[in-house]
């Protein structure tokens, strides 16, 4: 493949149009990414300046650190509590919203309203709802004979509280994506199934769920990645506590880097985060590719 002067010229023009984006990506994505990997191999001073080569020490420390294991476990529990329930709720509400009824758009807007709500706002509101003495949640529980816990004081319930908040925050996105998935299902398929005698729950499990499975899978990846990146609700509600119960991976990066000033150790955790997110995204890309292929 020889490069003619015309090739070079068109490449030059193309690069000129791409230059603003490329410069920004280089400065704030690609170079920092290389620096994160580099930092993870070094010890640093509190200023961030590199002192001595650490090799894989930080990674070995992570392997043996009980705190890191607790953090990964908290991240996993958080994901398990949040993602499946969030998607299931979203699907039920999306099916409800996927009807030709008058004023249906009002309901669609109301139920998807959480897409516009920031994590900070959501966390502050749920903080009030979870408040043991003022909050409505424990009052309602007491009316049905359940003694509500001190949600954010106990480790087991703190992660549940953060998960409920997160489910609410992602519900809007889940509903919109699933609704658009449902709207893409041809009406004839439902009619054919109806002729075959499918009704209600059977229709839902045999027709609806398989037909929106691409959307379900997309949300599974997107929501899991979002959980891996969740920081705001934890910072506002629990600050990683109590006793590290909500100190998920990102929160641990934040504390080790910006409170303990161990930039090298924190960078090693950032690399782990990167690998997790990249793995999930690559699975999705491959899945989508296959899907397009067989269609």
């Amino acid at each position: 493949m020889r490069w003619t002067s015309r090739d070079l010229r068109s490449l030059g023009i193309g690069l000129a149009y791409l230059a603003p984006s490329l410069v920004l990506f280089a400065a704030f994505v690609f170079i920092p990414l290389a620096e994160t990997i580099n930092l993870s191999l070094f010890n640093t001073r509190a200023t961030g300046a590199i002192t001595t080569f650490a090799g894989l020490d930080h990674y070995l420390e992570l392997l043996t650190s009980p705190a890191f294991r607790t953090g990964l476990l908290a991240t996993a529990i958080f994901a398990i509590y949040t993602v499946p329930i969030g998607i299931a709720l979203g699907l039920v509400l999306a099916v409800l919203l996927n009807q030709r009824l008058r004023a249906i758009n009002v309901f669609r807007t109301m139920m998807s309203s959480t897409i516009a709500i920031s994590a900070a706002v959501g966390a502050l509101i749920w903080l009030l709802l979870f408040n043991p003495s003022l909050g409505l949640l424990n009052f309602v529980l007491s009316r049905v004979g359940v003694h509500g816990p001190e949600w954010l004081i106990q480790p087991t319930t703190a992660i549940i509280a953060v998960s409920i908040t997160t489910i609410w925050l992602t519900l809007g996105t889940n509903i919109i994506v699933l609704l658009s998935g449902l709207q893409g299902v041809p009406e004839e398929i439902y009619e054919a199934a109806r002729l075959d005698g499918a009704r209600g729950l059977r229709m839902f499990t045999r027709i609806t769920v398989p037909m929106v499975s691409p959307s379900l899978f997309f949300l599974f990846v997107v929501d899991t990645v979002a959980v891996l990146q969740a920081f705001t609700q934890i910072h506002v509600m629990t600050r990683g506590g109590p006793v590290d119960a909500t100190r998920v991976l990102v929160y641990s990066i934040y504390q080790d880097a910006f409170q303990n000033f161990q930039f090298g150790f924190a960078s090693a955790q950032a690399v782990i985060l990167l690998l997790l997110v990249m793995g999930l995204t690559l699975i999705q890309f491959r899945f989508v590719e296959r899907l397009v292929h067989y269609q």
Partner: protein
Amino acid sequence: MKLRNIANYALLVVGSIVVAFPLLLALSYSLMSESEIATFPPPILPARPTLDNYAQVFATIPIVRYLLNSFVVSSAVVVGQLLTASLAAYAFSFLVFRGRQLLFFLFLSTLMIPWEATIIPNYITIRSIGWLDTYQGLAVPFMATAFGTFLLRQAFLQIPRELWDAARIDGATTFRFLVSTVIPLSRPALGTVAIYGFLSTYNQYFWPLLITNQTLMRTTQVGIAQLRFEETLRWGLVMAGVIMVAVPTLALLVLGQRQLIRGLTAGAVKG
């Protein structure tokens, strides 16, 4: 059939109220006095609605400044993203050059890199060039967008090639065609990118928390979260702050719902 519709509406009403309940409650509490909030059983609607909490927000934190900061930064990001993404999307749709595919993959690869994985070096960079507590520090890192480029490229590819050929025959330059034809024809997609950029910047928390220390440079999200860490936690005050911060984004949701939905569903495979 009628009966079924009634049942459906009942379900829809209940569902909507449950989902929107936390927001409605925040609005209700923002109109209650602190003493009313402290009564038992917890009230749902204010007995005597008052705007005192809103006045208190103005007296406690520089909320107007926070809103201004957030609007300046979010608008700057929107303008930046529209510029960089339209130029890049144009190169990826109308221009033909070697390495185009490779560069497109390079753009897409940024979608796999979580911002949190690069946040430490980015913080060190911003600090070393003296951009802590500045608008440029808050905005510039987010001015390029792979997602926006991807969305605009999809829109640009819908534009008939005949227009391009005709413009060439008329002697229009490459850049002129972008400005006079491609951009005006892609307004809906540009709207989607703009709404997305605004919403995601306005709702940011981690980055502004890191790089702003001066009270007057804080953004709305970080600013209201501070209310939680005041010495005495006044819930009416916090909820009034929450409503003031959420209103712009809710307005954007109502006005730009169609654009938002188009953006959200662009990534998902059609089911």
